[in-house]
């Protein structure tokens, strides 16, 4: 009551208290982009249509290549532009195009393959992400190129992509989950090894390219056999 009264009589403080200036604009923006990558991963958990799954993957890859451009520009690493362009061409254009074509041949649009309810899956994924943040927080990671918080986010992307593979039982989700694992590692790569993009960048893009080839072959083979994109039928081999 006393406090109320003083507030009433004392009127207005002249200015708001001074804030710490907050993070720099660069680190805010890059963190926001990595968060977009993570949120896309969450959206993949939910997405019902195989086609939208592929689109989400393309969008996520786009965010990753934008991030690469930011890192390249801010740290003056010329090679990263090349990585960004390669990532864009491969992951935003080529791989989604291949997957979309495979899907068109498969005639299966809607895949309800959630093993759990969406809200439950999201909650599990939140817990897993928090775990990733806590673990990464303990490590002495000093990134020359990006704010360290992004490392936790990248790790969360990786773990959620595992969840995607585990909790969804259709071929497209599992394939996209494995690819988006690559996106998470890509981000981790920008954080830790931005100075050496050539070797690790080649590693990543290479990984993706060949994985796409293998997955493409297998999706086709699988569909040719089972007439469905669900992995529920894959249970002959046990024990």
């Amino acid at each position, binding site marked *: 009551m006393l406090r*109320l009264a003083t*507030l*009433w009589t004392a*009127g*207005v*403080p*002249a*200015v*708001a*208290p001074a*804030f710490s*200036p*907050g*993070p*720099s*604009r660069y*680190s*805010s*923006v890059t*963190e*926001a982009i990595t*968060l977009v990558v*993570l*949120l896309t991963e*969450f959206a993949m958990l*939910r997405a019902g249509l195989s086609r939208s799954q592929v689109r989400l993957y393309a969008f996520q890859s786009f965010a990753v290549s934008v991030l690469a451009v930011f890192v390249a520009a801010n740290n003056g690493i010329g090679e990263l532009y090349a990585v960004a362009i390669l990532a864009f061409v491969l992951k935003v254009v080529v791989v989604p195009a291949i997957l979309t074509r495979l899907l068109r041949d498969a005639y299966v649009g809607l895949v309800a393959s959630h093993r759990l*309810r*969406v*809200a439950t899956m*999201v*909650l599990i*994924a*939140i817990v897993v*992400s*928090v775990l990733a*943040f*806590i673990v*990464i*927080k303990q490590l002495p990671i000093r990134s020359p190129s990006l*704010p*360290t*918080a*992004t490392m*936790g*986010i990248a790790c969360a992307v990786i773990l959620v992509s595992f969840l995607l593979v585990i909790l969804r039982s259709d071929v497209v989700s599992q394939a996209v989950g494995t690819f988006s694992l690559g996106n998470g590692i890509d981000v981790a790569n920008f954080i830790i090894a931005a100075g050496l993009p050539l070797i690790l960048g080649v590693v990543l893009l290479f990984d993706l390219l060949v994985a796409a080839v293998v997955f493409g072959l297998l999706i086709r083979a699988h569909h040719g056999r089972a007439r469905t994109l669900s992995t529920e039928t894959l249970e002959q081999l046990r024990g």
Partner: protein
Amino acid sequence: MAGIDLTPVQIQVFQVLAIVVLAPLLSGAIEHLEGRLQGRRGPRILQPYYDLAKLFRKETLLPEDAGWVFVAGPLVAFMCYLVVPLLIPVLTAYPLPLGFMGDILGGGFILGLAGFVVALAAAQSGGPYAQLGSSRSMTFGALIEPSMLFITFTVALVTTTDLPYFEAAASRASLGQAVRPAHLLAAVAFFLVVLGDTGRIPVETHASTLEFGMIDEARLLEHSGPLLALLKWGSAMKQMILYTILVNVFVAPWGLAGSRALSAVLLAIPVLMGKAFGVGVVFAVIDNSFSKLRLFKITEFMAGAFLLAALAVVVLYLGSG
């Protein structure tokens, strides 16, 4: 500065009056816009005022089982909506008397109390639709609560207080602060909360006729006359309050009066109206572009809002965010 300076108390009165008077106008404008978007001519912009005036002239009919709760509900709710504008930056960038009486959580509680008494009043009416609406609105209110709590945490971690004035001030202080991921996440989460709280698609089709999926609107079915007028006015005010928090605290805390000059305060009123209408446009577009979720899928929506809010806290707390 030339011109008349107002006392802080007068400005505070202005804040409340702005909400009370302009809320039906905002609703009318949005309704009109929606009509246009749907290819209708839409109701007149001032229609809500006419509706209110008409309802106030009518007599009040009470259901048989109704007691004093049924009557008191709309009154208490209306009073709650009068209190909340005291706590938030409606017109000024600087805090006003009684502005520190409650924080974001306090404001949330008062809004929650309003929702609760309305639900209580509806429950007492004995009408099946009204009771369905009140039970649903309480259920989903409880589901949205965790998100609201985490948004509050975010604000508290950013500003080291949880006063809405300071969150706004922090965003104004630097652009780095405004595009900070935690802030963006909290803003989007709050946007979703508002979407749910004002009974918009994808949670609920607002202003609809009778249907099974209705939540908030169903609660008003048994009220009539001045009581119904108060409820309608109250929900318009609630909508405006939430929009105001969204724009003036999270999204665009610019264009508020920086001084006590009458001209500055008066100028802030159309600016606020413009920003709130901007939000309304976004909401109307969403309303027209998405379909309603099935009732049992609303938890997914809530989980999405919670995800954003929780991530905001996590990023802030465990990262530099």
